[in-house]
């Protein structure tokens, strides 16, 4: 691995402070970034990570302190063009791509904007843009033919979009690429490819700063881990040799149990809580059969195209299967309509809480009560908001949702708390089976802990739980059994207490290749 390491740092921040009204989000941050290195910014939601990134990328200005890039002081007012011109590319979780523009425009447009200093009344140099985009696309392993380059980004899969955003950084010859949770939406195979591309960037002398919750991934990538808490750096360590439990403790300031959460075992029952028999949906999954006992936690995993997602939607009644039967406590469930499943007691917590689940501008009460308005109806069918609030308060206490009160809009909560509201909504329906789809995607270590405890408590109370996820440690920590899907079938089922991550990855068929990619 080449390290283009000069003595002068690429970027330095000194005594950076940021205040939003009364909130002191950054309290004196000194960050030094050198070319050709990897950095991982670790910390819980609300620790100041995103504020720091916004300042570095010129989206916001610090209240105090300064940012220097290659020795040049950055402007005091927010100036994205200046940051881009200085070689800083920021890839947020939304990938900062314009969905209605073509691949080549997404890759090459910013370079022209930077060249013109932000002035818009200039000719678009299409030929130049196309050549630049083709070169950058090839470099990250994307096709570089004109047909691909002219495709609109909103028609491409997420992994391709991820690479397009990196191609833009390549095109801009960025000195520092900041990536916010880059692997959240990717499968293992795609992550392996992404890491290969990232290593190429590194070899060119680009520094990479990752913001991540996935400590095991940070460890695979290697580099410097920077732990933030309460707007300050609390530790800098070599992530490859660091003890993850220790890092988790530094982030949260409390002991995080890396051990299994699952202590109880499923209740013995004559009739399975959920019995799935020969479930199939053309093009998605085939012949899926399993029994779920009361109080059992079943994990389902596989690559993104293994059929796990359609299966989750199928069980939830959102994408009805073509064939097969599902029985809940011995009674056949009609899966062609989500509300019948819900009435019978199958609850589904979707993966994408923002797009599919929560109403961000509505209160916690509204979000929790919406599935149970039937039960909150008083005389004349009018929903009692007082009763809804009482219910919301009970759920909020139960799930340790941190908020001023239950009338606060869900959008004002942190990711972990939002996820708890979503789970709370479904628990309020008192389901007999709970299907969780990626329950801790984008959730920090502390919140994960709380969510796992909630899941375990529900199972102990006799609920059947299915976790559909590609977060292997999460499955091992929580499940009695883990079913692995490949090409639409369940290919192997493991005992959660005995399996190790390596076995699971092997069964999934997407072993993470850490072998160096030749530059």
């Amino acid at each position, binding site marked *: 691995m080449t390290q283009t390491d000069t003595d002068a740092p690429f970027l330095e921040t000194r005594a950076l402070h940021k205040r939003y009204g009364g909130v002191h989000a950054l309290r004196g941050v000194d960050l030094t970034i050198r070319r050709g290195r990897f950095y991982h910014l670790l910390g819980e939601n609300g620790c100041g990570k995103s504020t720091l990134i916004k300042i570095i*990328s010129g*989206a916001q200005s610090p209240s105090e302190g300064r940012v220097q890039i290659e020795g040049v002081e950055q402007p005091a007012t927010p100036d*994205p*063009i200046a940051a*881009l011109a200085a070689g800083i590319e*920021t890839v*947020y979780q*939304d990938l*900062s*791509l*314009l*969905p*209605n*523009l073509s691949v080549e*425009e997404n890759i090459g*447009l*910013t370079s*022209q*904007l*930077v060249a*013109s200093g*932000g*002035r*818009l*009344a*200039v*000719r*678009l140099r*299409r030929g130049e843009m196309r050549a630049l985009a083709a070169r950058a696309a090839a470099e990250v*392993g*994307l*096709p570089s033919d004109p047909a*691909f380059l002219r*495709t*609109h980004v*909103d*028609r*491409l*899969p997420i*992994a*391709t979009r991820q*690479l397009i955003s990196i191609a833009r950084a390549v095109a801009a010859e960025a000195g520092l690429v900041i990536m916010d949770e880059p692997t959240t939406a990717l499968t293992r*195979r*795609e992550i*392996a*490819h992404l890491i*290969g*591309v990232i290593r190429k960037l590194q070899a060119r002398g680009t520094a990479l700063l990752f913001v991540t919750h996935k400590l095991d991934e940070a460890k695979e990538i290697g580099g410097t881990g920077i732990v933030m808490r309460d707007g300050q750096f609390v530790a800098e360590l070599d992530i490859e040799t660091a003890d993850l439990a220790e890092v988790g403790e530094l982030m949260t300031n409390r002991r995080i149990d890396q051990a299994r959460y699952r202590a109880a075992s499923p209740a013995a029952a004559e009739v399975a809580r959920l019995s799935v028999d020969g479930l199939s949906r053309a093009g998605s999954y085939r012949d899926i059969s399993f029994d779920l006992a009361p109080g059992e936690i079943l994990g389902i995993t596989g690559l993104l195209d293994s059929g796990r997602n359609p299966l989750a939607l199928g069980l939830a009644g959102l994408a009805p299967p073509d064939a097969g039967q599902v029985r809940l406590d011995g009674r056949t469930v009609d899966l062609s309509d989500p509300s019948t499943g819900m009435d019978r007691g199958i609850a589904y917590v979707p993966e994408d809480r923002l797009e599919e689940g929560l109403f961000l501008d509505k209160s916690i009460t509204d979000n929790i009560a919406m599935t149970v308005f039937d039960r909150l109806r008083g005389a004349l069918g009018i929903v009692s908001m007082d009763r809804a609030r009482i219910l919301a308060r009970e759920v909020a206490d139960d799930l340790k949702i941190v908020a001023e009160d239950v009338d606060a809009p869900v959008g004002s909560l942190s990711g972990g708390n939002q996820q708890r509201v979503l789970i709370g909504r479904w628990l309020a329906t008192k389901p007999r089976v709970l299907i969780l789809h990626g329950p801790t995607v984008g959730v920090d270590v502390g919140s994960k802990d709380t969510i796992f405890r909630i899941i375990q408590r529900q199972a102990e109370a006799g609920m059947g739980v299915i976790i559909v996820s590609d977060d292997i440690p999460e499955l091992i920590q929580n499940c009695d059994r883990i079913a692995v899907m490949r090409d639409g079938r369940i290919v192997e089922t493991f005992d959660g207490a005995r399996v190790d991550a390596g076995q699971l990855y092997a069964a999934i068929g997407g072993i993470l*290749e850490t*072998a160096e*990619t*030749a530059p």
Partner: protein
Amino acid sequence: MSDTDLQPAIADRPSLSPGKRIADWILANPAGFPLALLALTCLVVGAINPDFWQLANLFDVLRASVVEGLFALGVLVVLAAGGLDVSFSAIAALVMYTVTLIVSTLVPGLGILPILLAGLAGGALLGALNGVLINLLKAPALIVTIATQYAFRGFLLTFVGTALFMNIPASMTAFGQIALFSQVSADGLRVQFPAYFLIFVLAAIVTWALLNHTLLGRAVYACGGKPEIAARLGFNIARVRVFVFAWAGMLAGLAGILHVTSNRLANPFDLAGTELAVIAAVVLGGARVTGGKGTVGGTIAGVLLITLVDNVLIQVGIPSTWRTAVVGAFILLAGMFYAWVDRTAVGR
């Protein structure tokens, strides 16, 4: 290279079913849908009434599409940037009446060029006001332009005048009379094709070049796609917004002046109520009210379609009162069709 074998998996393109093929083609050729409807309408009307196939009809439709076409080009740019404008007809009325009144009272001998420039400038100024207000008030474009529509019209009728007048400047009358092509048809009618149609062609070319060959044009679509991301990438959203509304206002001002020259009279009550038909034409042409899409070619096809329906249905014995119902049916069809296109093309 170890990573090349991953390429196909990562860069998979959607496989092509016939429906997807059509959807893909329409996304790449947005004018296709209105052109198909246009051809269909012509064939049906022509089959019922063979008299339809004559030059006079073509000229009628083209002439009638100039004012609406200029409006539509402006609406296209605003829609592409994620905005909405319903004030353009009021801008056109205010500009055409005020400019004509001032010129005919003060400098009746003024040439056509300064009059056209005055129309462009006045329209651009009023349009820019829309953009500035939207930026300042952080209010939705629809609400702001509804408000300015009332304000512009109210100002016109209260402070400028309410009386129709016909003694418009001589240069305007003359300009409206210049014919590119003139012929006496078989039934003895004089058929004329006005030169001011070229102004519409020029406006379309300039708008096309602007949208497709300047950074500003890309910024317009960027703002219409995801404004917060566009801002993050360094596009100045506020400036783009002022520009698109100024552009729409400018084309509206121009349309107003042409409206006076072709009608040879200035009526402050003209043009009101054309807003929805214009927006419909642009949407028929493939733009989305949700922003970020639309092309000049599609827009022109949409305008031609609406003008055609407006002008020829009477020839096949459909009462003119039914005209609006047919237009409505086309719009409904377009809405369904484009929703299907978006669903089919993006879904995988």
